[in-house]
């Protein structure tokens, strides 16, 4: 076969691979939107599920999802950012840093079901926090930690050296340089990383199923249990009696996550000055 034909066929295949990827995304989103759009109504969003087949709305599950996500974010953001500051600004390459990085990579790849079992064993049972927003948020924090850490470290490293020098040259201490120059300059990308990790937490199922409980409840205190949207969707889908509500929940979940993703992109584009 001539060189040019081989080339054309091979490039065609690559096009097809990319097209399949985009088409699958389109199909999944389209399918959820088409089936779910009819369900969406203020009533569906703002009322409680009722009766044995969860007729009615999904309000408590939305609240549970947002509650646990916000709580996890509050817990993990400071820790992850400071950890990234350590790695990017303070650490000297060596065994310690190697260990920390390996641990972070390992955390990032822990199967979520294992994280769920861990949360159950440590927070729910051993620590006695019970099925609660707090237990779920703590378990989710470990999931978000490596993501926020990595994006923050990259963001910090992307701040030009010159800017740092300027600050040191003026007699700023390390912490003054980090807190007044480096972190503010890296903030848009750090926030983007946080938003993306938040999206991950919103979509997580296996971690929260064993840490938050499954009871439908409107959480008020962090010690309250609840049922997040993902678990609600899972139960509705597997039960298979009230599929319309499952489509509606799936669409809401998708809107939330796409919202987080697009929000992060938009935010980054608007603030990318440095």
């Amino acid at each position: 076969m001539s060189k040019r034909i081989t080339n054309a066929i091979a490039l065609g295949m690559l096009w097809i691979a990319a097209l399949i990827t985009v088409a699958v995304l389109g199909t999944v989103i389209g399918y959820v939107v088409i089936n779910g759009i009819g369900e969406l109504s203020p009533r569906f969003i703002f009322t409680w599920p009722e009766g044995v087949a969860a007729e009615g709305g999904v309000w408590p599950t939305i609240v549970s999802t947002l509650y646990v996500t916000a709580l996890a974010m509050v817990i993990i953001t400071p820790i992850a950012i400071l950890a990234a500051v350590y790695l990017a600004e303070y650490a000297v390459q060596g065994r310690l840093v190697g260990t920390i990085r390996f641990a972070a990579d390992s955390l990032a790849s822990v199967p979520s079901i294992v994280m769920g079992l861990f949360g159950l064993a440590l927070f729910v049972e051993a620590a006695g926090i019970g099925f609660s927003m707090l237990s779920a948020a703590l378990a989710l924090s470990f999931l978000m930690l490596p993501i926020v850490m990595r994006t923050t470290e990259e963001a910090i490293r992307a701040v030009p050296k010159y800017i740092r020098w300027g600050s040191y040259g003026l007699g700023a201490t390390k912490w003054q340089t980090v807190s007044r120059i480096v972190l503010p300059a890296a903030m848009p990308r750090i926030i983007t990383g946080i938003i993306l990790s938040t999206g991950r937490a919103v979509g997580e199922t296996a971690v929260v199923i064993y840490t938050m409980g499954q009871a439908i409840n409107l959480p008020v205190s962090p010690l309250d249990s609840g049922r997040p949207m993902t678990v609600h969707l899972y139960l509705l889908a597997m039960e298979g009696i009230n599929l319309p509500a499952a489509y509606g929940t799936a669409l809401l979940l998708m809107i939330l996550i796409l919202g987080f993703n697009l929000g992060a992109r938009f935010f980054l584009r608007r603030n990318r000055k440095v």
Partner: protein
Amino acid sequence: MALRATPVPDNAPNKITVKELDFFYGDFHALTDITVDIKEKAVTAFIGPSGCGKSTFLRCFNRMNDLIPGARAEGLVSLDGQDIFETGVDPVDLRRRIGMIFQQPNPFPMSIYDNVAFGPRLQGVSKKAELDEIVQHSLERANLWKEVKDILGRGGLTLSGGQQQRLCIARVLAVEPEVMLMDEPCSAIDPTSVQKIEDLMAELKDRITIIIVTHNMQQAARVSDFTAFFLQEVAGDPAILVEYDRTSNLFTSPKDRRTEDYITGRFG
């Protein structure tokens, strides 16, 4: 030349004294046996081919090299007679007294005002009126006030390259340094702005000791009172200080043949 005030007298006090300085990056020996006295309230230029260690040397004065892992200096560098490498000396205090301007203009990603106020704020100045005064005074000394007085809230990065560099100078002036180190401050900006910065140096030197690293011999000849010529003769060997003299002497009657070769453009 026209802007230069009276020549620096021979008996001007030494601001910085360097004796037998050797400098290493890990295993790499970058500078060896440098001995030089920097006169107060004069402009001293460091010239030499690229990679000859003149920037490294400059960064010894405010211990910026501390930030590079594995870098170490042996020998003596003293400021007003005090060893800056002495145990316990605070590099942060040192850097407040020895300001630095870099090759790449590096305003912080914040407003013009905040850029200039950054240093004073570090030192605990927080009163608005006081800061306003410092900011205005510093920008005036950097000849930038007229251009930016109405846009102080705008981001420092929105200025042109030359303006950015003058903003950085204003930022350094705001902390009232005794010495200003300038590491090729004009190599990344347009010629008109270069002129402005050179004028500025002449104005500033009656209050501040200035050391400038430049690869541009004409610039060294224009702005400096003293010039030091550095050279790394063999790749891999440490660089040395070949000759140090009044600029007028060094450019007109160099004592060392290597200096002569360099200034007449035979290499470098």
